């Protein structure tokens, strides 16, 4: 069964230069375990390939049921010079929450 990450977790995006980071936090332990397995750095890189140019790194923070995804080359050159509408990439957290992951019944 596939469900959007939005049903399992909450997230916030931040920016520095041309790099975006997205903190993602499972609503409970079970959600965290599903995301740990399904929401890999490679999966995020693949899902957001039209938006980001660089690579994705995932840092795990199990005590927070959380992950920090660092997305390089995600902001079309950076907040200050990008001609995108959302120069900071603040809305990118919801692109990540839109990813559909497999959940075993």
């Amino acid at each position: 069964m596939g469900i959007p990450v939005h049903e399992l977790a909450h997230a916030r995006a931040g920016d520095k230069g041309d790099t975006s980071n997205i903190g993602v936090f499972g609503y409970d332990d079970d959600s965290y375990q599903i995301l740990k397995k399904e929401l890999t750095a490679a999966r995020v890189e693949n899902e957001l390939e039209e938006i980001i140019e660089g690579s994705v790194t995932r840092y795990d923070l199990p005590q927070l049921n959380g992950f920090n995804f660092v997305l390089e080359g995600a902001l079309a050159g950076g907040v200050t010079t990008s001609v995108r509408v959302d120069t900071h990439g603040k809305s990118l957290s919801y692109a990540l929450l839109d990813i559909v992951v497999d959940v075993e019944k």
Partner: protein
Amino acid sequence: MTDHLTIGTGAGFAGDRIDPATALADQADLDYLVFECLAERTIANAQRRKMDDPSTGYTPLLSRRMEAVLPSCVENNTRIITNMGAANPEAARKRVIDIATELGISDLSVASVAGSAVRDRFDHFEEQTFSGESTTQYQENCVSANAYLGVQGILDALNDDADVIITGRVADPSLFLAPMVYEHGWDLTNPTDADQIGQGIACAHLLECAGQVTGGYFADPDYKDVPNLETLGFPIAEVTVDGDVTIMKLPNSGGKVTLRTCKEQILYEVHDPSAYLTPDAIADFSNVSFEQVGTDQVQVSGATADPKPETLKVNIGYEDGVLGEGQISYAGPNAEQRARLAGDTVRKRLVARDFPIDDLRVDIMGVDSLHEGRGRDQSSPYEVRLRVAGKCETSTNAAEIGREVQTLYTNGPAGGGGVTMRTKPVLGIVSTLIDRNHVHHDVCIEEVK
């Protein structure tokens, strides 16, 4: 020395709301009220204003913020620390002296902390920017270059009994860490204080974006609800000498402080959680945990720190041409297709013109303006807004982008309405490093008698 040091946040960015700071100044019995008002590009913009008028160059809302909180802060013995000095801390200090005088406040000591401006030290910058380009290529179009200072200038001002301290570029967490180091006597060079310093930086990081830890930038209806968002309060932290940290807010304010609001904020703009670089120490948030110890009260634990880096981060602001933009809306049957035809038409007309445009973009807002193609296969919205934008070397050329959108009224697809157009000078920012021995802070204190 205060055992339970109380620090509140008065602003999390230059344009932040003013009422929450007034409420904290009036009701929270704070030791310190800290205003963080500088984003990456703010100083470059302020430097431009200063070039036009040397008495400006500080944050535009300085006067309104000070008028709102100064009387209560004086009455309640609350010291104010802020980076509202931006490109001109000295002028900001003078302005605060004038405001205090106008308000009839006497016996106030106001300090400015300058020294972050390092544009004259390009020779000492690292050869490469963070993104690997040559630093010197930005020298010609450079508007400003500022190093991120640490706590030391603020500590000097506190030691000289300043009541209000106004800095230029200081690392955001340092604004909040300085009063902890000063009041609790923590030693930044002593490994035995590493946990306290780490906890202090974690606390500073949670506070620095103001409402973002009290339920601002958090609400998602039916998933993460926030009570009374319209009266969102700003955070207060209680910090003990041992580095115990509790985040809270005024009970009569809107918003909430929960494990979830704190989790989202602790990783905000952090890359490697085990190495959060500041000029004062390298904080390690990788084992930070939170405990709800009361309604809207969250205790923070588990942070630590390594000694400060030998280099300081420098942001170079440079002129990067002019953004030109035009927008127009379409609604009803076939709206997206008409918008797309309009976008293609403008693009072709602009390409046929005889001037270069960088990064020309055609966005259909409501369809693909935020996440490129993601979600494009969903059904067409009832209304969309076309946006065409690009960068040019001159504002005259940049204005032509908006004009081409405007001519869609009589030269484009059917039913377009609500054209807006604008041009805006683009200030780019790149970051590099400088050896900290080449950067010196300069504290100046002035008093209202």
